[in-house]
């Protein structure tokens, strides 16, 4: 068991602390001391090469992330490409009024409900897989792990081909082989809404359970083995060990990962909701999420202002949710919080 662990995870699982607010508010060293500007200029000169190294990265962040931010005002404008962002006339809250009178409810509901389903299904399956993998002694273990992780590396476009191979109404595997075998009539999958919540939940699990089970597996392998040894001596069965040692110890990881996912509940995987249903109009009531709505408004319907309003709504609510989730994580375990 021990050797196997080393093999799989040579780097110990440690907490990453990408950012710590304490560093800002209580700097360990005082940069601008009384000793004057000369010293800080020398220091600046010493660090000049470091700033130069950081420069390309910041330039990119500026272009890709910060420059677009003022463009959020498009949500409050009647946008016309000819007049540009600042030349377009103000529309006040008209875009939002219209959005909330029409599609806002549907796309918000879809985004949130799918995310909730994904969180529940993926968490249960990942923990299940991680526990089995952590206890299994089979030589096939490596094969299992490789196989379930592979879908994570497949692009959404190709996922849509894979799904199409099963669901195509003319020559799909399900209609042509499975349903035919039972003498049932083929189903027109891409125009029947009722199946899609299950299909999307299944496809999402197919794609991401491998990934999250690795996180849980690493956590389990990091547990102190002496608990298990003591339990074995006391005659606890494997199921008892899982119920009374593994699951309780996983609790904090589950809570953290779930809270983080809740923080992202206003965002959806665009590829999954756009490519996998093949942009089928008949399926929109069950496949339209905020992200696909924004995309269609911008590039298919040319309704940029409406799209911008939905995007603005997503950015703001999403931001509040991330902050809230982090606050909750901080309450439970300070070290696991993002900031």
């Amino acid at each position: 068991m021990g050797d196997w662990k080393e093999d799989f995870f040579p780097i110990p699982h440690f907490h990453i602390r990408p950012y710590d607010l304490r560093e800002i508010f209580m700097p360990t060293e005082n940069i601008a001391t009384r000793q004057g500007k000369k010293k800080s200029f020398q220091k600046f000169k010493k660090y000049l090469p470091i700033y130069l190294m950081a420069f390309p990265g910041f330039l990119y962040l500026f272009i890709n992330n910060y420059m677009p931010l003022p463009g959020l005002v498009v949500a409050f404008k009647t946008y016309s490409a000819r007049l540009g962002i600042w030349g377009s006339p103000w529309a006040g809250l008209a875009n939002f009024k219209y959005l909330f009178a029409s599609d806002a409810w549907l796309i918000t509901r879809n985004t949130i409900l799918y995310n909730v389903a994904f969180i529940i299904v993926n968490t249960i399956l990942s923990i299940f897989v991680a526990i089995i993998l952590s206890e299994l002694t089979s030589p096939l273990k490596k094969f299992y792990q490789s196989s379930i992780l592979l879908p994570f590396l497949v692009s959404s476009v190709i996922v849509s081909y894979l799904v199409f191979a099963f669901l195509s109404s003319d020559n799909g595997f399900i209609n042509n082989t499975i349903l035919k075998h039972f003498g049932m009539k083929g189903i027109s999958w891409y125009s029947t809404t009722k199946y899609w919540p299950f299909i999307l939940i299944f496809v999402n699990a197919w794609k991401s359970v491998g990934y999250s089970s690795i996180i849980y597996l690493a956590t389990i392998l990091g547990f102190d083995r002496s608990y298990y040894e003591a339990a074995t001596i006391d005659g606890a069965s494997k199921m008892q060990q899982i119920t009374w040692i593994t699951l309780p110890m996983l609790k904090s990881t589950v809570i953290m990962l779930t809270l983080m996912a809740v923080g992202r509940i206003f965002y959806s995987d665009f590829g999954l909701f756009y490519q996998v249903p093949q942009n089928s109009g008949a399926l929109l009531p069950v496949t339209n999420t905020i992200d696909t709505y924004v995309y269609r408004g911008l590039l298919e319907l040319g309704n940029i202002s409406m799209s911008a309003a939905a995007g603005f709504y997503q950015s703001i609510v999403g931001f509040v949710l991330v902050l809230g989730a982090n606050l909750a994580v901080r309450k439970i375990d300070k070290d696991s919080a993002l900031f």
Partner: protein
Amino acid sequence: MIKNKEERTFQAIGNVFMMIFALLAIIPIILIIISSLTDNDTLIKYGYTFFPQKWSTYAYTYVFQSGNNVLHCYFNSFFVTAVGTVISLTITTMLAYALSRKGLPGRNVMTFLVFFTMLFNGGLVPTYINYTSVFNIKNTYWALLIPRLLMNAFNVLLMKSYFVTSVPDEILEAASIDGASEFKTFYKVALPLAQPIVATIALFNGIAYWNDWMNGYVYLTDATDLYTIQNLLNRMIQNIQYLSNSASLSNASVGLASIPSVSVRMALAVLGILPIIVIYPLIQNNFVKGITLGGVKG
């Protein structure tokens, strides 16, 4: 005795479950590989199956002999992935290293500027307007390289914490006392010590570039010669929908030639995953490490 029996039962049931999961994971991929090797008429008659009545390598011969377009897109994919990964890795590593230097004046503000992009972003509309009206990257190679993919804050912070924990300050100071320039210290001292994380981030970047279809979809509206294999696959699906949705069959403007036969489409999808499947055994360990590192923050 009872113990052993329980252990055996557990192992057996565990193996059964894992075998089912593993097969569920790879069966769809196997199905398209088999379909791409199935005779096209058989495919149309019996649909996609795991045991075709007639095999054929026609689809691949077709792609490699007449599919100039296809090979061109394939080349674009490799090109964009290679160039994107190199640039991306360079700027990510340099920024992460800078942020890891403890004495750096302004380090906290800089870290915050990176971190903030993870919390808040403008979304598609402002980004699109910025790239198209300010930078005019529509229908250029830049469209495939620059938006979203070139650097992401998460990778920077992941790498930064690796530098902080695995490159001791003393070593950097020693190098500096020995007269090495800052850049040389970075290149000769810090980088070799951070090799595992560099490999992992390179992998993340490479996969992101190879799999990306959205940049091409959003920004390459006319320049189909710049399409990557993902864009080509995407376009084919759209054309099929377009045809099946429109009653008139006299569409001259369907785009990239006519729609290839079913088996050819499957062959293209296989070519699209092929590089990943080929390198997967080599990268898997590094990839798993990366996931574990990013783990709880993921």
